[in-house]
């Protein structure tokens, strides 16, 4: 029996840990951090195509017990006393991760980002990177009753799919898989070697250099896949427009919604973040996704999140409405906001924001 299962079973034990043990451990010169798991970076390598892979050995690998291929994980790093957290797709196979107690995440370094520029070769050996439990529903169905699994990936959207393909290879199902992979450069693209190895095991796979083939079109699929749409499962991962076009095309072909699995790969990995002037962005409306209620609302220009939520008939908790009382504070998952009190623009990762003095300057996801 380990610590985390004791924590779940005995509230008193948890109380003791939360009140005394954890705060004291965090103050000691160890890499222990409240709310996250300790790791050590054992490898950083380039995958080509501007993608970097980071290998993290977990001190206690029990959180990987329920890991499924295709899931993502939150990485946290402290910079100037501030925790920066970002979610990354796990690119190592689930079997490998469980067996050796490590995970690999792959990402495109975003020079303007807060976290990825810090994850370079110098991180090897460091205990500064922490992780949370893996999460996500973009996984292979437990019983692959369908005859064929079709994967459509664009850019770094390949990462979760790579893990899924390796899972399929582990269960000897790789010959039933087809991958369409949209890349910039048909010669040098990320994970070339791992994909060739999977190809050798039976993966049907086609690299689609977008300069020649253009973005996704239905012919790309039907040309190589004579199987009827009804007998396939589809896994889409990439930017929003790829998912929209591909899903629509598949639905038009008679596919059922239950056959289509997808993962939006917007922030933070593929976003081409130029620091957009906050003033420009404050002038336009943005969509706010609410993850707990699984809904969304529109936040118009120059309006605080609290007011726009209320205009949409929502009733978030609030108090003073001037940024003083900290009652409307809520967790932001992603997206940047403008602080109307200080005029400062936030990070795009998860953090607490006050709804009454925050304005969306891009699409947001909030944990309410």
């Amino acid at each position, binding site marked *: 029996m380990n610590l985390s299962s004791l924590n779940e079973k005995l509230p008193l034990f948890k109380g003791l840990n939360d009140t*005394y043990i954890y705060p004291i451990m965090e*103050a000691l010169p160890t890499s222990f951090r409240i709310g996250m798991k300790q790791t050590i970076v054992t490898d950083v390598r380039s995958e080509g195509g501007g993608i970097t892979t980071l290998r993290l050995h977990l001190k206690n690998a029990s959180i990987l017990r329920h890991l499924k291929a295709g899931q993502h994980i939150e990485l946290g790093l402290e910079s100037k006393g*501030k*925790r*920066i*957290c970002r979610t990354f797709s796990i690119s190592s196979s689930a079997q490998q991760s469980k067996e050796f107690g490590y995970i690999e995440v792959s990402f495109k370094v975003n020079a303007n980002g807060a976290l990825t520029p810090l994850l370079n070769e110098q991180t090897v050996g460091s205990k500064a990177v922490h992780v949370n439990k893996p999460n996500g529903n973009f996984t292979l169905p437990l019983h692959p009753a369908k005859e064929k699994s079709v994967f459509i990936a664009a850019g770094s959207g390949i990462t979760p799919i790579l893990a899924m393909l390796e899972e399929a290879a582990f269960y000897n199902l790789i010959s039933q898989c087809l991958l369409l992979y949209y890349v910039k450069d048909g010669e040098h693209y990320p994970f070339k070697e791992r994909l060739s190895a999977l190809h050798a095991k039976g993966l049907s796979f086609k690299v689609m250099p977008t300069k020649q083939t253009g973005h996704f079109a239905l012919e790309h699929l039907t040309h190589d896949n004579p199987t009827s749409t009804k007998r396939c499962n589809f896994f889409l991962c990439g930017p929003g427009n790829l998912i929209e076009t591909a899903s629509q095309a598949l639905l038009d072909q008679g596919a059922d919604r239950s056959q289509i699995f997808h993962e939006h790969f917007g922030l933070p990995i593929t976003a081409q973040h130029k620091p957009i002037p906050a003033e420009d962005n404050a002038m336009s409306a943005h969509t706010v996704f609410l993850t707990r209620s699984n809904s969304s609302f529109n936040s118009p220009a120059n309006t605080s999140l609290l007011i726009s939520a209320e205009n949409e008939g929502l009733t978030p908790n609030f108090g003073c409405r001037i940024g*003083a009382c900290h009652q409307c*504070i809520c967790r932001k998952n992603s997206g940047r906001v403008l602080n109307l009190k200080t005029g400062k623009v936030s990070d795009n990762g998860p953090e607490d924001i006050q709804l009454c003095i925050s304005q969306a300057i891009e699409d947001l996801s909030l944990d309410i």
Partner: protein
Amino acid sequence: MNTPNKDQLSKFAAELDNLRNTVIDQLGEKDARYIIRLIAIQRSLDLCGRIAIAIAFLAFSGTLAWLIAALGILLLSSSKILDNMEIGHNVMHGQYDWMNHPTINSRVFDWDNAGHNESWKRYHNHEHHTYTNVLGKDRDFGYGLLRLSNDLPWKPKNLWQFFTFINLSALFEWGVAYHELAGERVFFGKKKEDSNLPISDQQLKKDFFGKAGKQLFKDYVFFPLICWPVALQILICNVIANVIRNIWTGTIIFCGHFTEGAHTFSEDSIKNETRGDWYYRQILGSSNISGGKFFHIMSGHLSCQIEHHLFPDVPSSYYRQLSPKIAELCSTYDIPYNTGRFSKQYFEVVKRILYYSLPEKWQPAYG
């Protein structure tokens, strides 16, 4: 005292904003480690205090037991003071929200105090800090129990308000918890005309009794019971530790707003208030206590009440270094900066409480 004009006040505000931004820009690793370490120290004191009290009675007897218990009480009350003052109060003001830490933030942090954290944030952060010493708006002014200005009508109960003050000090956390909850209104149905609370009375009651129950259970049921044969002794020690904490916190807070020079304001005077006016009013309504680093930490830097009221969300450890700069700025603009030794400030509070316990016509000349 000359009131600075609008122009001077706007320059004054700009200089204060500038000071604030300088601090905000340098927040980093050092500040994060400060609060994390302080919390660890506080938790260790709490644990050691409770263990010392238990061992005192379980393993020793007679005078020696009470001597060891006294040490335990000292540790436990220091822990409670640190938790309420330098840690809880400041974290709940959002001073450390920039750390993006899962537990040290104003959204989830809770303290070892009878006051419910949500209610406290509502009344303290908003009402008290926005409307400091505005009569009819800031219910912290006299806590609805004490008459500290002739602008408030005299009632016979004010005659013995010195004893009310002593009681309030000993039971400070309960006084504040009850009062922050708009106790009078919720329990006796008195309505304020312009009340627009975003929370129902039922929720307020639920929060109050939930937190009160939790606190009473922890100190007066749970910890005594796990040391069963000496439960009564543990209970007594916990009561003493809580009372020590209450007297200390109450005293520091009274010295922050109810000294002789602390001004009061009318609701009309704060209409159309500019940022400069607001800063000016915060300074006039607050008073500092001078002292060393240890004293400031134990008082949660509420001994730098002026700095705290100017910048409630700036980490309190910067108040000490801001204080001389602000005092200098105040003297440039001819704004009174109220500071003094603890004994002086406390004496003024007691004097003020006694003075206003009499109706205006019976009062001698102040001084």
